[in-house]
């Protein structure tokens, strides 16, 4: 099934030949596994305050996207945003380094970056960087961004400043984000990347 899934992802890009290094196969979820992921509440009536904080509180959605694709995408962007090593090598084996799997913490990369930033940069700045990174990464993947109220956002997202979110909490949040990203098209208008 993984092979079928990977193949279907390649077929989604007609005319593009894959040339180089191996990519991790996306994790496949059964229908019952997807159904078991709680769909967060998204409906709300925005206040001026909500609209003013859309730079912080938002969700992503892309039409015609499966849960597997969405989960792979949010996992990749989460890894990039938090400085976790994610991409595997092309030709050379780097033992114990490119060992990551979708949806798992994997190998901690950016050790010095995180350590220094945590010591000096400040939690608030790191939260800002994470927001920028998620917006850019998901934007490049073709997802639209939609504003949300803070309380609804908190039900399936996490802020990450200094330190790292617990892996179980992180994974549960990413699953819900993937459910939303691959769900019904939002009725509200998308906002700027």
């Amino acid at each position, binding site marked *: 099934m993984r092979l079928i899934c990977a193949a279907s992802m390649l077929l989604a890009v007609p005319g593009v030949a894959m040339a180089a*290094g191996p990519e991790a196969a996306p994790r496949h979820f059964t229908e019952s596994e997807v159904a078991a992921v709680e769909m967060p509440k998204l409906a709300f009536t925005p206040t001026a305050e909500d609209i003013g904080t859309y730079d912080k509180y938002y969700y992503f959605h892309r039409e015609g996207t499966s849960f597997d694709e969405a989960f792979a995408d949010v996992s990749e962007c989460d890894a990039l945003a938090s400085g976790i090593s994610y991409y595997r090598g092309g030709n050379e084996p*780097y*033992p114990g380094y490119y060992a990551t799997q979708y949806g798992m913490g994997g190998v*901690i*990369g950016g050790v010095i970056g995180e350590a*220094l930033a945590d010591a000096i940069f400040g939690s608030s700045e790191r939260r*800002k*960087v994470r927001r920028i990174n998620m917006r850019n990464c998901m934007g490049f993947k073709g997802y639209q961004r939609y504003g949300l109220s803070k309380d609804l956002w908190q039900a399936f997202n996490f802020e990450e400043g200094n330190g790292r979110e617990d892996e179980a909490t992180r994974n549960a949040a990413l699953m819900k984000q993937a459910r939303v990203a691959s769900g019904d098209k939002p009725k509200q208008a998308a906002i700027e*990347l």
Partner: protein
Amino acid sequence: MRAALILAALLGVSAAAAAAPADSLDEKKVMSGKTVLDPASGYILLHGPGRQGGTFIRVPDAEDLEAFRKERAEAFAKAEKRYQKKLTSWEGEAKLAAAQKKAPPAKPVAPDEASFSIGDIEARTALQFGPDFAYIKDKANERYSYVMAVKPGTYIWYGPVLFDPGQGFVGLCYCMGSVRFEVKPGVVTNVGNFLTAAPLAEQQKSAPLLDIRHNGGWAGFKVEVPTASVPVDYGVPASLDKWPVEQAVFTASGKFNNIYGVMISRLPPVPGVLVYDRDRVIDAKTGAAVGSGF
């Protein structure tokens, strides 16, 4: 950069993980003949309208890989030794706990050879330049040139990522797509202003970015992220007239890990070199998707 290494040491982080500073050339020394071309060394020449700064990643070669494997093997041996000590200590504590009918302490976990990590190999081949130590500072014509002596090899433009002693690593990683080029020995590889001028920044949307400020110099520097393409200029300083200079040949480079935990983006598309299909990095010359990493 010395500050980076001192700070890294204070924080207990391997100095190997900090980007090495570029061996920047000084125009006065080149003109006086104090600095001469080393046929075994490679050189990178670039310029821009303001202070430039950033990080290149040299694709690890066989020597780097060997050093990495050796370092990892040594670190693993140390980890195993530490584990054996902890295990011996734990066995004593567990016996004591059993005698006292208390719950035993958590058993230490043995290091796993397959997943044991010493971090990123690319952090060991990263090279940082600027924003200070410019080869030429021409404020009147808004042209700052940088020349650095480097190990020959393949270099990936990682982006305007800098170590700042007051903040740690700051900047923007082109982690989701960039370009690479070859640096030959005994030749100055002329990058010109390609890295900031050629990418079609006006065609790429981005979330608003934080300023990239470096606290070097008297008042600190702000490294600008281009918002629009401009004509590419490969002009060479007159002081390098007698040095062999070759224009860099750029090819598309795939996604990369955010090893410094900074802001991420991608180099905007470059006609004839780099395009994207959503987030897939495509080599514009061949139409083929480019794999991640090296």
